[in-house]
């Protein structure tokens, strides 16, 4: 990033190639395609605009996804969504739906059905849990980096990620997790 700030366009191209997919899907899972494209472009525009102010104290990835998180919160605020500002129950424990104690014998499931179901479940997660999940799985962030990007503490980030995983695991068809040896 520092090289790009000094005028090295190739350095930007490498950064873009590395993060374009993850950032795009980060927005896509939380909005729709049109909005995802708008926010995706806007984040890169802001990054380009502020490139000379970048300080290497934070990693580039953390900075990029902090901008992305901020843009998403802005978008939700404009749309009148209030969920992100509500007190967070997840820190103290979400009421998870208990798994069926007797789910019966495993059925045969198609892999494509599992993949489709999982994407729908991710999109249906509570906002903050979904963000933690996406920062881990799309950006490949550590808990410390997730906490920084979401402007919260490490323990809170850990809780959000844990509750997201618990929800997905309990909601997805059992066969999807057991079909792989």
């Amino acid at each position, binding site marked *: 990033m520092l*090289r*790009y700030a*000094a*005028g*090295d*366009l*190739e350095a*930007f*191209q490498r950064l*873009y190639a590395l993060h*374009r*997919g993850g950032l*795009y*899907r980060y927005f*896509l*899972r939380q909005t729709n395609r049109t909005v995802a*494209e708008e926010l*995706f*472009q806007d984040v*890169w*525009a*802001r990054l*380009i*605009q*502020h*490139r000379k*102010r*970048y*300080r290497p*104290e*934070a990693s580039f990835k953390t*900075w990029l996804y*902090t*901008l992305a998180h*901020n843009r998403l*919160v*802005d978008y939700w*605020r404009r749309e009148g969504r209030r969920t992100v500002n509500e007190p967070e129950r997840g820190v103290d424990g979400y009421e998870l739906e208990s798994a069926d104690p007797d789910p019966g014998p495993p059925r045969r499931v198609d*892999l494509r059905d*599992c*993949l*489709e179901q*999982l*994407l729908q479940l*991710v999109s249906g997660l509570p906002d903050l849990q979904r963000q933690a999940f996406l920062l881990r*799985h*799309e950006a490949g962030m550590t808990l410390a980096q997730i906490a*920084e990007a979401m*402007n919260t503490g490490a323990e809170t980030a850990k809780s959000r990620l844990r509750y997201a*995983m618990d929800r*997905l*695991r309990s909601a*997805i068809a059992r066969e*999807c*997790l057991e079909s*792989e040896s």
Partner: protein
Amino acid sequence: MSEHDDRLSRLYRQSSQETPSSQLDRAVLDMARKSVHRKVYSPFGASWLVRGATVGVMVLGVLLFLTMPEQTSYYDVPRDVERPSSRVDEGLKEERIESDEPRLDGTTTKHKQPAMQEDTGLEFHDLLPELEVEAEIPEEKARRRTQQAPLANEPAGTSLATPPVPAAEKKTLSRYIQAGSFRNEQQATDLRDRLTALGYRASIAAVTRDDGAVYYRVQVGPYAQDADAIAARQQLDSLGLETRQLLE
């Protein structure tokens, strides 16, 4: 991470394969390209094309200088050739005019231009005209007076020596610095992004007043310790921001 979590992660990676369209890629890369080409002034930039162009301009400048010696010795250095050293040229031109121009009364009548100020790099100064100063809210003022008196009343240089806060209170309170407050959300967003680029944890809080007016407050923090909050506030002040400390 359990075996099922691993399987879940693998499954997600299999399912999540979308990428931005080529149009979107082009739009972003074009933005980056334009910004670099517009902003590069360095004669020794990274690209060979820029270096070549710079050398070409310099050679052209030398040729123009050699072919027009009479003109350059008196007044106008060609104004259509803009070079990084234009400030030096200005100074030289002024020196030449002073030494060559006949003095009628033997006194010095020229007024030298004041020296240009060094670029401090503190780009937040250009935000200051856009910053809106909030009127003090009586309730908040009273609250801050009772809660933050030791911090707010300390002179900047000695504020680190604040009275000790009980350990339990230190752990529970979250300290935020307000870096600006705007009626215009876009201005707030811009300031927050600038602060983020500088490595601060900045966020926006929309606050609706009793009269219905919505203000977008740019906040930095939270800080667990007074000393951290005060240090951050001093840094932000030095950037030309009019800060306030909030306690939540």
